[in-house]
């Protein structure tokens, strides 16, 4: 079966700036918004864009990610055509195939891509929160007769020096690319989303590898090389919500903004749903004493305390007289009585003993997965 386009999601990133939250799981598997994981957005976008074949390239701490993705059925990607395939680094006669960078990860999986004979290759990152119709981008790519198209988004000029910045002519053709420029000439930042004519990209990757000039990274190596050789490289301007939740602060902020029912992502839009793996859980129960304001709550929770401007994920228990404010509580966390949690991100399966307190301030407090907070010390017993 020939797919016109197949997608490769690069989900190997460590996300080290997320500290405790990515110590045991890869960044794309970090929970978001009460019932999602970050990669759900890319996977749902693929499914909603009609892409039938998706390779998910994993590397760092893949266990959680692999079990989350399964056979892709949760995103409707368990189809006859290709479905989801998890691609991990492996050893071969040529030695170990550890991925050295984004482009290198594609190079190592050439045989997987070839087996689907795609005309176009869509390259995505599993790290971003956004809704995007990749079919529009592909139409743009074909209309411009491009060999490569880079999705870009306008960022504030003062932040532009943190991104890969594309300078374009008035036909959207990229004439210059600068990685994290100190004096940006434009504010069109690369979103890490690319469409390539597979035949051309394949040639670049194999030739560079054959000559020992490895192209490890799309931003650093591949795009500059395409530009240097006069390929048709175009910028596809995306106008919508897009967030790279790379730090604790940005993850917290993106979650807090997500509570707002008028959020730009429009999560309740049934024509572009974000799918996830939905575990079995009964509805959530709020007791007679519960007080929940300006918050998101999902299936399986039991709330006897007070919740204000927070996200409460699956199967969380909040005991009487406890107060959760401006925080994200990830799934299966148990919070005892008289507990106070403010300005915090609490990982999955954490436990709070009665009377425990976690209060963040300027700095967001992070409680790791399975961490136990409070309780009597030996002396107090």
């Amino acid at each position: 079966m020939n797919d016109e386009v197949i997608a490769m999601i690069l989900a190997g990133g460590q996300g080290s700036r997320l500290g405790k939250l990515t110590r045991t799981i890869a960044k794309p598997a970090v929970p978001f918004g009460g019932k999602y994981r970050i990669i759900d957005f890319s996977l749902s976008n693929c499914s909603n864009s009609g892409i039938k074949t998706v390779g998910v390239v994993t590397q760092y701490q893949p266990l959680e990610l692999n079990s989350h993705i399964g056979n892709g059925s949760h995103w409707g990607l368990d189809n006859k055509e290709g479905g989801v395939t998890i691609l991990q680094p492996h050893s071969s006669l040529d030695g170990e195939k550890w991925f050295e960078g984004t482009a290198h990860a594609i190079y190592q999986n050439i045989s997987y891509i070839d087996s689907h004979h795609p005309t176009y290759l869509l390259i995505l990152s599993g790290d971003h929160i956004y809704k995007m119709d990749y079919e529009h981008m592909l139409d743009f790519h074909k209309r411009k007769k491009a060999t490569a198209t880079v999705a870009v988004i306008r960022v504030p000029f003062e932040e532009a020096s943190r991104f890969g910045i594309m300078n374009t002519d008035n036909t959207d053709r990229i004439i210059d690319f600068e990685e994290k420029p100190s004096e940006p000439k434009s504010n069109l930042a690369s979103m890490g989303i690319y469409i390539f004519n597979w035949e051309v990209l394949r040639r670049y990757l194999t030739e560079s590898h054959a000559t020992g000039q490895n192209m490890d990274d799309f931003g650093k190596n591949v795009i500059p090389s395409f530009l240097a050789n006069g390929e048709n490289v175009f910028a596809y301007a995306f106008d919508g919500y897009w967030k790279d939740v790379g730090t604790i602060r940005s993850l917290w902020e993106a979650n807090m903004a997500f509570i707002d029912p008028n959020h730009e992502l429009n999560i309740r839009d049934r024509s572009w749903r974000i799918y996830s793996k939905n575990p079995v859980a009964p509805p959530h129960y709020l007791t007679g004493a519960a007080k929940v304001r300006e918050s998101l709550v999902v299936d399986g929770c039991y709330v006897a305390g007070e919740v204000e401007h927070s996200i409460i994920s699956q199967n969380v228990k909040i005991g009487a007289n406890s107060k959760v404010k401006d925080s994200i509580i990830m799934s299966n966390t148990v919070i005892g009585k008289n507990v106070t949690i403010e300005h915090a991100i609490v990982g999955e399966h954490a436990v709070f003993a009665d009377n425990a307190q976690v209060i963040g301030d300027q700095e967001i407090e992070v409680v790791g997965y399975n961490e136990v907070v409070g309780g009597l010390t030996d002396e107090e017993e």
Partner: protein
Amino acid sequence: MRKNKICGILNLTEHRQALYPLTLSRPIASLPFCSRYRLIDFPMSDLTTAGVETIGVFLNDSLRSIYDHVRSGKEWGMDSIHGGLFFFSSITSDPGNGQRRLMDGDIYNYFKNMEFIEKSGAEYAVVMGTKMLCNIDVQAVLRNHIEQGADITVVYKTMDQLTESDQEMSCMTIGEDGLVQGLRSCTLRHSEDKALINMEIYLLKSTLLMKMIRNVVAENEHCNLNDVLHQAIVNLPTNGFEYTGYLKNINSVKNYYDANMDMLQEANMTALLKGSQPIHTKVKNEAPTYYSDTSDVRDSLVANGCVIKGEVNHSVIFRNVTVEKNATVDSSLVMQGSYVGSGAELHYVILDKQVRIEANTKLIGTKDKPIVIEKNSVISRILEENTGLPIVEDTSDRIDEKTDYHPTLFP
């Protein structure tokens, strides 16, 4: 366990008139329950948890709502290469004679489709319905059946107190040897004794079940499988298996309402839904439920996908429900996709799916007779120019005259 030791028979030809208008266009098995389930989820989950790989679903009329909910059975792990789900309807099993056969009882539907039991290769068959809401360990029933060595095992529950609506159920007497001695209708007259309620869950050898069905059809008797089984447990050595968990007979609107309300008590919820046997249901990808700063929700169960801006007290809210600001929902069931407008007030009301209650409408039922609003209704309070009195406008397609459950008017 050897593969496919038991096959399941879901007997969904249950009388549903008593639940009108909730069951006007759906069988009892499709009734929504506890925010996100349907009654069929319970026997489906019980059977699949017990390792049952082949389930036959028998219904007298349209399978649409059942099929839409169950589909391939994926959520219950039924979409494997072994066994699977089989749907049988009287209407399709004998197209030329469908109407007549319907009047003859459901036995002919079983007879025509008995091949599925044979093909499954299962040694035992379990027959269950959905009216008796429970969460039963089918493996435990099988173990008990083999230990006791009787021909049939029937599941019962001991009830201390019977209510009026229990009267149509059948009660059993069980001898000291543990065998069923007799079967009679439950009557309040006997209510000083403990009543052993027949839960209409039967386990027996597949060959015996097929023989019974064949014999009845050979004698040209028109009856239901349930009648056949009732006769059999009296005539053949039958072992009683006592169920001690949560049970509700969903045979009236009141019982249906009460069963939902029972789930607000943690002990009931734990017994039915949080025990060692999880209940699976069709997965919907709904967003998390949003509570605004004006919301005030107490003692309630709420599913995903809702937007709650008003007051909700002692109620069960299903998926995708909107409760607007200054609305009050009290002691009510609000099913999937319904909308309660601002200033509206609901007490003891059951809103079926996709009902729209316009702003400032008041509906007040009672604990014993909750008001039922039919699926897709729009209920609005309109000031009549002449009288200044509000009237209730029901724009749903049909009002069933057999039922008392009409929206009541409250100025």
